[in-house]
């Protein structure tokens, strides 16, 4: 598979502290690579170093097979970036903002008009073209931010936490838009600390903490790294200690926690453990209101690898 980005041994220091520590990874053509990590883990610094916005201590970065630097305008012409902070001009309307940034790449006016229209469609801002950024809600503003970054139809797109502080409706809209971009052939690097987004979007995930890669693979591969295979949750009133001890002794059970009328049971191996749990409650004639099973999340993986939550 063709490599779009090659990062080798990237190290970036701020005042002697390593923000990115010997990072190496590739991004393949047409994939969505997720950079997952808590705030301050080095995701944005990695992106800014790849984009040659930041000095870095050591390492090699190639994009489209060529060395990336500030004067690599041929590479830059194929890149689109959506920064974590909204980067639009308050003085311009929605349309003007997209047109301005798109015009930095597309000089043909008619072509640009079409591209701007496509970008407006993609992010669902067609009705807001004459609005100023300050007149938009947080979610709509984020969508404008994305439109400005991708209107010129780049082959490689960096999305740095594009859904931070966004309402659920806008988030779904944004995620749908990103899928469309991938479907149109773009390669995407997506940084976030929302594991749900990574699970929905990403073909491959790199988990970063303290500037280091701590795990990499597909979502399923990463989940398989977890010692926990299944989690069963039961909503049940006044479960006595006797029953809890019995549940603990059931097959494959690793841990049992009962709090606030909720029973959390984890399993280190086996499949469909929920069946045995349902049988147990049935046999003991214990009534429960809800029971469901979950696979381990990326947060569980992160918790096991680092001892802390992703959103800590």
């Amino acid at each position, binding site marked *: 598979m063709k490599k779009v980005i090659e990062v080798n041994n990237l190290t970036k220091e701020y005042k002697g502290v390593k923000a990115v520590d010997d990072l190496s990874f590739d991004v393949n053509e047409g994939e969505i690579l997720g950079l997952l990590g808590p705030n301050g883990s080095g995701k944005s610094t990695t992106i800014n170093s790849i984009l040659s916005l930041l*000095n870095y201590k050591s390492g090699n970065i190639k994009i489209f097979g060529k060395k990336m630097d500030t004067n690599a305008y041929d590479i830059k*012409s194929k890149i689109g970036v959506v920064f974590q902070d909204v980067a*639009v001009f308050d003085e311009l309307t929605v349309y003007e903002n997209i047109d301005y*940034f798109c015009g930095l*790449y597309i000089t043909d006016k008619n072509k640009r008009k079409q591209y701007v229209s496509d970008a407006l469609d993609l992010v669902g801002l067609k009705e807001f073209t004459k609005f100023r950024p300050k007149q938009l809600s947080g979610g709509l503003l984020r969508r404008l931010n994305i439109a400005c970054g991708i209107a010129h139809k780049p082959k490689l797109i960096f999305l740095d936490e594009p859904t931070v502080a966004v309402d659920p409706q806008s988030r779904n809209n944004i995620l749908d838009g990103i899928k469309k971009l991938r479907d149109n052939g773009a390669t995407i690097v997506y940084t976030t600390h929302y594991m749900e987004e990574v699970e929905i979007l990403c073909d491959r995930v790199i988990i970063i903490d303290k500037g280091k890669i701590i795990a990499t693979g597909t979502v399923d591969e990463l989940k398989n790294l977890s010692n926990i295979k299944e989690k069963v949750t039961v909503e049940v009133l006044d479960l006595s200690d006797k029953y809890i001890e019995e549940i603990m002794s059931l097959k494959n059970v690793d841990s049992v926690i009962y709090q606030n009328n909720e029973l959390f049971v984890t399993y280190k191996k086996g499949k469909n453990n929920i069946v045995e749990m349902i049988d147990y409650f049935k046999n003991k004639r214990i009534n429960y209101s809800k029971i469901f099973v979950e696979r381990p999340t990326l947060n569980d993986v992160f918790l096991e690898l680092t001892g802390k939550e992703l959103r800590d």
Partner: protein
Amino acid sequence: MFLHNFIYALKILCKNKVLIFWTFAFPIILGTLFNLAFSNISNSEKLDVIDIAVAGENINSNFKESIDILSNKDNSDKLFNTKYVTLNEAKKLLDDEKIVGYIYNEKIVVKKSGIEQTIFKYVVDEINSKINMSSSIFQAEISKEIENGNYNINYELINKKVNDQLNTKVSLNDTSNKNLDYVMIEFYTLIAMACLYGSLLSMTCLNNIMPNMSNEGKRLSISKTKKVSLILSNLCASYLVQLVGLLILFTYTIFALHVNYGSNLIYIILLSLAGSLAGLSLGVVVSIKFKVGENAKIGILIGIVMFWCFLSGMMGITMKYIVDKNIPILNKINPANMITDGFYSLYYYDTLDRYLLNVISLIVFSLLLLVISILNLRRQKYDSI
């Protein structure tokens, strides 16, 4: 690409209400207030003749001549009512408050402080200073002639040389054959302020395109547009907006406030261009050198410009005299003073020497700041953004 950036930079600047207020509206408001406050000052000053006395008998003839000119009833700019009296009589007149003060041994004696006393002191100081200066130059010229072995000295020629030298050395109120209108100085400083307020435009433009200063700058810097094209298009846009603002101010002050800047239109334009360039370069250097937010930079620029305008006489012409007299270097490096003095010399002098010196000083000032800025702008990557 240049045109695309230029057009959008223009749009961004013209829709920025804060910038438009400071660069367009504020000078017009201030000009209107100047007009309301000072429109009758020239006339009223003529009525305020100051009563003084000259005591003693051994009075320097040049000094007496100067006082007599300023006390001549036929002089439309008559400043003093002068009585020549004995020292005791002078003291009595002062005690009886019939005079503001008296001159004894070319020094003034006053009893209290006030505007009339200040004017009296300033004028006498100026006369003394002028006499001392002419005396020194005269002596130097004679010594030079003697050193050259020329004992047949042409005093008339030396006198002309002295006058020529004095004309190039004196400051505001000496050599003009036109009436000095202090209100004009206020409007000159207003133009200077408007020129230098252009710094707000260039500062904002730079902030918008530099990746270490704004998010928009980050986005622009990863585009395929070359940095030099971005910077030039934005600075050209800011310069154009600045000149339009200046044109509006000139139009308003000339046609609505009836301010007469003189008839040398080409020179006025040249000085305005140079002054605006100084403003532009000031904005660029502040944008690059001060690592603070945009509002803080606006505050810094307004502070700097107002301080410079204050020194060049915006809040009172006396300040310009005080600086000229005590710390002349301060006004030599003050672009607001260069612009004010440029307009002044264009209006009051028949030769262009002093005017051109100010224009060249402004260009040198601008180039110096721009060179400092370019050294910083060459930087491509940052340690943090």
